């Protein structure tokens, strides 16, 4: 297989991942050092690694090289990697001071001496970097094997992270659950991959795309391939924490320590969404809508896949929000909230062409940053050396820690979609993408869900800020390190300010994915509405000039080059 692809561009494209991988090795060694200063520098090393990878992307990444290396969506690949790295830096920061907390305390007290056998800090950050590395590999996968391995590289370290993040039995129980159920979901999408291979006869995503285009042209994707796709989507649902694979989330999120929960609610999610987007691209899900020769707009997604996603979307939002309503634990609440947000994001996948693509990316950024603000604040607190996780424990902490309460409030406001904050714009874009793609009923469901969610998000504002301090919140003090609080502060500021600069963030969002020539796609019987063709705008013309397939492409964006 690799004979198809020249090695040079591939290495250039993979340089960030190589750096992150190298960093993970380095970190795991340094973490074992006897010197306390060196041991403490492990998170810093991890952050430096991620920064180096960011620099590598900024300087070394080119869409042409990526396309040569077999990457289906070069620009998408770049954006996803950047998001993962930037949020990853924050995730490393919020975990500072949590790992080995007891052991370091004991060493400092002189109760015990340093024992390399018992220290886990290095491994923890190494696993973190490995998981980030796995997630970064996903959007650029050229074939199914790669995709499978990358997904596993994302997930396997997280199982261990859950277990080692906290010394308690609950964490170990959560890890075991997470692992077994994860293995099951892996089996589901691996079976799906096998069926797709059976139908398309190739593992190369490029080839699969061609084969399925031809199949669609001649009447539809065959049963084997379609079943494969459905199974893949269901398998990925586990990574997204979407129905029907969402059951694990509350237990696992509750069992893991706060920073790890923050990690779990973002990295596997973005990994799952990029895998989903990548896979669906092979059956017509592109960044653009395509106008066929008869003038109809082809959304690209075949009806069964659309129906599956529709169902997943509606169910996930609703179950997530209903589940979150009555939780007493902040983390369980956030777990259900994370489920609900996956549901919203599936709406972006469904809306697909045009705005949907941008909405997905913007929502991922918004969710990632907001998540950091909340988990940064939660990780910045402790009670008797343990995580703070119940609402009562947060009650009235605004009087002692107004900053932390403010970040919780900003994060919570953004998650519920309160106007000037980042989350509002993300939801606005998402809903408009949904309306534009003709999925108004789904948007209405999402809007109702969003309204319901205000109920429980307001508690996260109200309890810390307005409730009187109670007996259970008395022992709550600041955490051992100020890095989580700092990361939370930065994230909160970003949540407030980013809306003003958002248009620059997504940049030239028009060329997210290569445009397939319309001649390969005939009008197919999809459930998408037929939106009337409009006059190409000037922006459309510039898009055409940028497109590598300008001669054959007959595409129109049925939105202006919308940027937030």
């Amino acid at each position, binding site marked *: 297989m690799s004979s198809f692809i020249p090695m040079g561009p591939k290495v250039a494209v993979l340089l960030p991942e190589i750096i992150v991988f190298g960093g993970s090795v380095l970190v795991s060694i340094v973490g074992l050092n006897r010197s306390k200063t060196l041991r403490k520098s492990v998170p810093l090393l991890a952050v430096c690694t991620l920064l180096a990878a960011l620099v590598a992307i900024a300087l070394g990444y080119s869409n042409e090289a990526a396309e040569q290396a077999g990457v289906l969506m070069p620009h998408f690949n770049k954006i996803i990697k950047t998001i993962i790295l930037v949020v990853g830096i924050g995730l490393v920061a919020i975990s500072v001071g949590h790992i080995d907390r007891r052991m370091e305390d004991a060493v400092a007290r002189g109760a015990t001496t340093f024992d390399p056998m018992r220290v886990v800090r290095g491994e923890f950050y190494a696993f973190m970097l490995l998981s980030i590395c796995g997630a970064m590999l996903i959007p650029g996968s050229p074939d199914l094997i790669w995709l499978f391995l990358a997904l596993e590289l994302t997930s396997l370290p997280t199982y261990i992270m859950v277990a080692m993040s906290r010394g308690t039995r609950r964490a170990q129980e959560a890890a075991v659950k997470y692992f077994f159920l994860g293995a099951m979901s892996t089996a589901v999408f691996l079976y799906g991959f096998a069926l797709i291979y059976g139908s398309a006869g190739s593992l190369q995503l490029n080839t699969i795309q061609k084969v399925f285009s031809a199949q669609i042209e001649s009447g539809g994707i065959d*049963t084997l391939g379609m079943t494969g796709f459905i199974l893949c989507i269901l398998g990925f649902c586990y990574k997204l924490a979407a129905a029907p694979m969402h*059951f694990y989330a509350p237990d696992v999120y509750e069992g893991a320590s706060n920073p790890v929960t923050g990690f779990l609610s973002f990295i596997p999610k973005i990994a799952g969404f990029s895998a989903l987007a990548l896979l669906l691209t092979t059956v017509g899900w592109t960044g653009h809508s395509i106008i066929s020769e008869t003038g109809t707009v082809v959304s690209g997604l075949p009806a069964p896949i659309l129906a599956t996603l529709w169902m997943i979307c509606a169910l996930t939002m609703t179950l997530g929000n209903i589940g979150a309503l009555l939780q007493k634990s902040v983390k369980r609440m956030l777990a259900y909230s994370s489920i609900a947000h996956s549901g919203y994001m599936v709406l972006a996948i469904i809306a697909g062409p045009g705005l949907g693509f941008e909405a997905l990316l913007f929502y991922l950024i918004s969710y990632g940053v907001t998540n950091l603000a909340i988990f940064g604040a939660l990780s910045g607190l402790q009670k008797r050396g343990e995580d703070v996780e119940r609402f009562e424990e947060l009650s009235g902490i605004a009087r002692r820690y107004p900053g932390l309460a403010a970040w919780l409030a900003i994060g919570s406001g953004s998650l519920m979609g309160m106007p000037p904050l980042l989350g509002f714009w993300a939801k606005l874009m998402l809903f408009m993408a949904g309306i534009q793609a003709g999925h108004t009923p789904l948007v209405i469901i999402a809007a109702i869900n969003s309204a319901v969610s205000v109920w429980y998000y307001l508690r996260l504002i109200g309890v810390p800020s307005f409730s009187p301090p109670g007996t259970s919140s008395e022992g709550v003090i600041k955490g051992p390190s100020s890095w989580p609080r700092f990361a939370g502060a930065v994230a909160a500021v970003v949540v407030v300010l980013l809306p003003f600069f958002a248009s620059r963030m997504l940049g030239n969002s028009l060329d997210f994915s290569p445009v397939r020539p319309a001649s390969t796609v005939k009008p197919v019987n999809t459930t998408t509405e037929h939106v009337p063709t409009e006059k190409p705008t000037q922006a459309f013309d510039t898009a055409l000039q940028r497109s590598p397939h300008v001669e054959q492409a007959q595409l129109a964006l049925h939105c202006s080059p919308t940027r937030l």
Partner: protein
Amino acid sequence: MMSLLCTSDTHSSAHAVVTAIVNAIPSPELSWTGWILSLPAISVVLTGLCCALRVKGKLPGWITVLALAGSFALVLKLYFLRGDAGAPVVVHLWDWMNFSWGDQSKWHSLQADVSVYVDSLTLFWLLFVTGLGTLIAIYATEYMESDVGKGYSRFFNGVSVFILAMCTLVMADNLLLLYLGWEGVGLASYLLIGYYYKKPAAVAAGKKAFIVNRIGDLGLAVGIWLIWVNYGSIEFNTLFQVWQDTERGVGGFDKSLIPYCLMLGAFGKSAQLPLYVWLPDAMEGPTPVSALIHAATMVTAGVYLIARTYPLFALHPDALATVAWVGGLTALFAATIGMAQYDFKRVFAYSTISQLGYMFMGLGVGTTFGAAYHTLTHAFFKALLFLTAGAIMHGFAGQLDLRKLSGLRKVPGFKIVSWTMLIGCLWLSAFPFSAGMLSKDLILVQALSINNHGFVWLGWIGLITAAMTAYYSFRVWFRVCAGPVFYVAGEDNHDDHDAHDHAHAAHPAPAAHAKHEFHPHAPRWAMNGVLLIIMLGAFATGIPGYMELRGQSNWAQVMIAHSSAFAGSVQAHVTDAVNFGMNPHQLVEVFGTIASLGGIAIAMYFHLLQRKSADKLRAWLLAHNSIRWIPVAMENKWYVDELYHACIRGPAWIAGHILHFTDKHVVDGLMVNGVGRIPSALGGLFQPLYNGVLQGYATTMAGGSALVVAWIVYRWLVSGAAS
């Protein structure tokens, strides 16, 4: 003088008047105008850092002064680059919002970028906002010195936020950005009114200002929404073209509602009836704030809003008449209260409300130039008055009672303060040939010359108010600055006794005898210098008025005439006789002079020559039951606060408690706990799904997946409807 006025009848033809609003030119080369906004923004960040790092010293003050001076310099550069009559330009700074969906025919797009719309109206406002902002910031570096190391950074942070928001407001090229600035100035005002946050009155005043403004802001928000829905855009450039077209501009209930909504916003921000109640209380803030925000700049945002959307208002004559009448009545009403206050900062606050009333009257009767010009002159003389009041407060440990201060012009160090205050009072009382008279007369002449909507009556109300204004402004000056030297130190309204300490440091005296040995703390160079500069500015603002009077073209007139605000304003027929066989010019000239001099004369009698007679008059009024309500009601501000308390705050309080009860017992008690019981009631059905047992989860997940696959296979694949 009269002949001089008569020659000016033809002046309107002397100026080139725009009939249509020119389409704004996109001017990327002017992108440096973004720095007018960026400099205050940088100052916000730096002073915020000073706050966080607890900087001791005057650094934050000078950062702010430098940033604002930079902004002012850029505004001047822009002004000299464009001239008075330059065409409007749009400078695109960066994309902000650009949505579109569905078919493009209706309101299916929303575009609002962070762009700057600069026309003469914007420049007019920017000139005095940044100019006065700089001067007042310099003044505040000295005024706030007792708070150095404590609230000093916070204060200048608030001032920077304010200037940033105010510049955004006047430079916005769309209503959404304008709204952002609008809320920003409201926030800055709230923060600065509540600057002395340990003082309950200041905290309450801050809340009051914020809440009363919310009512107005709701109006503005609804107005913006209606504009977007009805006209499909919120960008001024597009809207002006639509509003010039009567066919598209009017029609339907929605569209006729828009000016009233915007008006409500303007009345809230500019403290007009019925939403004026917050402004007098806002005097709890530090005095430079009162001068900058609550006299010179922020409160004119309402005037700016209506001037900016004037083409829309011109389509709705009834709405304009409403603006005029609300303005006129506010002017009169506030003046009656101002006559009976003893706190001279409050007197100036009520005079601000009254003068803003004149501006709205000017807008309503159709002279946008008069309104804008009065805004300019008022900005200077009212800033001057507040800053002198601040200097007196600073020197006399917060003393504000005009009965406890007298003869300050003879107190060493207070000469400049007294004489600049005299200039301010003369300008405020529309003394003949002062800038205040020139601008006010433009409005009154216009009102008297329009025989429509009862505007002539409004003109007479304006003249009566002018007499009251002259009386109350000189009541302050004669009491405080003239007469025998006498003063009582105030309680010092700072949160602790720094001003005392400071005064003692300057003039060593035993602390035990603070009251007897009190030495006024005279203002130094920063305060005196700023007072003199603003006084010169107050003189200078008269120049356009003189030129206008002589029928000459002048920069202020040309600027307003070349902005969107001029479209739709009315040209009055000033030659027709109205009352007493005189034309409006002559009427205003004669009666305005009588009002001004008469008011000053009465004030002089009661408050300089025969001070005891003022008390006697009051006693006499109070002794007669049939008329005793007049002084009582005026001193108690016509009981409006009490009325609002009874009508709005009371019911809101009761409603709040009912809602709280409902929330606690009905919602929490029945619904939450009730909903909470549903899962346990249906436990047998749902429990196995979330039982925390691994196998259970696995079964459910596998079962769910199997159901989905089975359904898809049946629905599409087996039934043959594969796509």
